[in-house]
């Protein structure tokens, strides 16, 4: 083997690369954004094209309260990550729990809305185009909230077991990026479903 040994520089050259966790999460967010874009395009394309009722304006009511819940959870997770960076695991745990509670409240809101639509208004995913696009778009977002909550819950368990320390702040930041994305997507879904589509 005539291997050539490449010279070893003991870190003489500056080498500051972006954190791979952040880059990876931004990659995932880009992919998810593309998936949501297709669902949003389908929703907008089919607005008003249902051949039978019920129509959006008859059955949809704007979920202001639960939207505020979800959006404020972005604030609590941001503050949680910040307190972890500052070294306060206790306030991190409290704010993290608040984030989970707000996310769960949002899911509860979706559940009650779907229950009302299905059992009182008779709108299911196979009723008409509105039902198909509505349940898939809101459901796709709800699925992402569920995935986020599972991840948040796991961090919560680790916190209770005393395994989360300030040096994990970077990883928590990566997870909170995902949560911010889920919240941001809701703004788009909200606008499309409850403002433009109604």
């Amino acid at each position, binding site marked *: 083997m005539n291997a050539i040994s490449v010279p070893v520089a003991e870190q003489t050259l500056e080498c500051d690369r972006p954190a791979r966790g952040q880059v990876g999460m931004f990659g*995932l967010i880009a992919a998810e954004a593309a998936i949501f874009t297709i669902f949003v395009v389908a929703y907008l394309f089919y607005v008003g094209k249902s051949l039978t009722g019920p129509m959006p304006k008859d059955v949809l009511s704007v979920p202001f309260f639960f939207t505020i819940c979800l959006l404020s959870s972005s604030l609590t997770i941001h503050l949680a990550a910040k307190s972890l960076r500052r070294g306060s695991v206790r306030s991190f745990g409290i704010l993290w729990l608040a984030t989970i509670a707000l996310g769960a409240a949002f899911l509860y809101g979706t559940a009650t809305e779907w229950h009302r639509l299905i059992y009182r208004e008779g709108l299911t995913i196979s009723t008409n185009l509105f039902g198909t696009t509505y349940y898939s778009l809101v459901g796709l977002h709800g699925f992402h909230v569920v995935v986020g909550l599972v991840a948040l819950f796991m961090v919560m368990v680790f916190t209770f077991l005393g395994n989360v320390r300030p040096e994990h702040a970077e990883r928590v930041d990566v997870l909170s990026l995902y949560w911010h994305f889920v919240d941001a997507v809701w703004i788009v879904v909200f606008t499309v479903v409850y403002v433009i589509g109604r």
Partner: protein
Amino acid sequence: MSTDAIALPEAELATRPMVARLHEWVTTVDHKRLGILYIIYALVFLLIAGIEATVIRIQLIRPHNDFVSPQVFNRLFTMHGTTMIFFVTMPVLFGFANYLIPLMIGARDMAFPRLNAFSFWMTAFGGFLLYFSLLGANGLYGAGNAPDVGWFAYAPLTSRTFSVGHSTDFWTLALLVSGFGSIGTAINIIATVLCMRCPGMTLAKMPLFAWLNLVMAGLVILAVSPLTAAQIMLLVDRYLGGHFFDTQAGGSAVIWMHFFWVFGHPEVYVLVLPAFAFASEIIPVFSRKPIFGYSVMVGATVAIGFISMSVWAHHMFTVGMSSAANTFFVISTMTIAVPTGIKIFNWLATMWGGKIEFKTPMLFCIAFLFQFLAAGLTGVMLSVAPFNWHLGNSYFVVAHFHYMLAGAIFFALFGAFYYWFPKMLGKMYSETLGKLHFWLFLIGFHLTFDFMHIPGLLGMPRRIYTYEPGRGWDTWNLIVTIGVFFQAAGILVFLGNLLWSYFRGKAAGSDPWDAWTLEWSTNSPPPAYNFYTIPTVQSRRPLWDLKHADDPDWKYE
């Protein structure tokens, strides 16, 4: 010999029981092993899809042939297309990217090794799922086994009404599952290239291979995700009674076309950018010159990435769009010929005045250049909407895109196989068999795909299982089918060469080509940790600097 210092003794590895070694391969998170798994997996599916293509061509060898039934013919072209795109070309290109990117940028592994393994197994199970349809898809209705809706599966053919049984479900799930794998790999490639480069390797000093795969990964993220979304919609339609593509309930069949081709056209560039990457590494080494116009090559690549996102509806001229849409997609499609043309001139300028060595990898790359040019020219012809109305869905289109996929991508890919074989396995391939493969495949390719344009021009539509005699198509179809046997012989020589060289080839040494990128600085095959010490680079050709300390590249870059 610093790289040898902590390598495990070969004898110790070889005496381990078969099961233990197999277990290591199945549970591996090493980018090199996963790369080889991708490549072997793709070669198996290449054989399967190649047999399907051969049967298709035997059926079309003469008019009124009844070698296979119309139903089987539909399944054959669907499976051939789906397999070739998703389970041959994408995995094999991911395999090379996986194997080579960390080595080229001086890293010890990909950014996320476990995500890497996850992605491979998702892709692998996607392929198994597609072929499991042969056993499982009979389902309740006893109708159809393999998917038969064409590789772009237009609605409403995929609705429950027209596609009973489960064959279409297997098709959808296979693409959905392998799509998750592709997205995972793309994220991994981006994170690796951006975050794992060795000291001194700025973006402007990266090998073009890494640059092109970075853009490819970006395109995968933006292109495969819409396909994933469309497959979810199709599943909602088929399983939950949704109406996305149900024209009876106000849904649109055309929107499936848009969603599919928003994926489908960037996908072409997902496949061809790695081929460019191979050519951009091989041509300079065998021309004994640095690549001509590095920064322009990078710029052209990024431009192709952007433009490729806005050309999809040129697949839909015959559907009937507004004249504004037609005009837009004609112009955007023609625009993409500009950066690709720049690339061709850069490769030619790299060869110009060089001391060209006509080794097998270089032969394949030279053929790649000419065939890529020809494929691009028929592409520009087809981008003209009126011409496209005449020839859309004819054998001219089939010839055009096979010229791109086989003539450009596969030729560059074979070049890559021969070029990096010594690195991956530590053995030299047989140059005689390599040249035999090249000439057989070249002759077969031109017999098949040059002459396939003509029945297309004479009006032969694609996807017909047979045709009437006396339309002037007979002789051309005969020649096209004869070419297939040359190609098949070439592939067999290729596989034979790989196997023979693996067992009998002579040791290759770490740098058989006197090349310049970092992968040639470590052993062949590289140890699990790639580099004993993380290298430091000062120019785009770190090994040139090392071999010519009196006249290093970094003085001029």
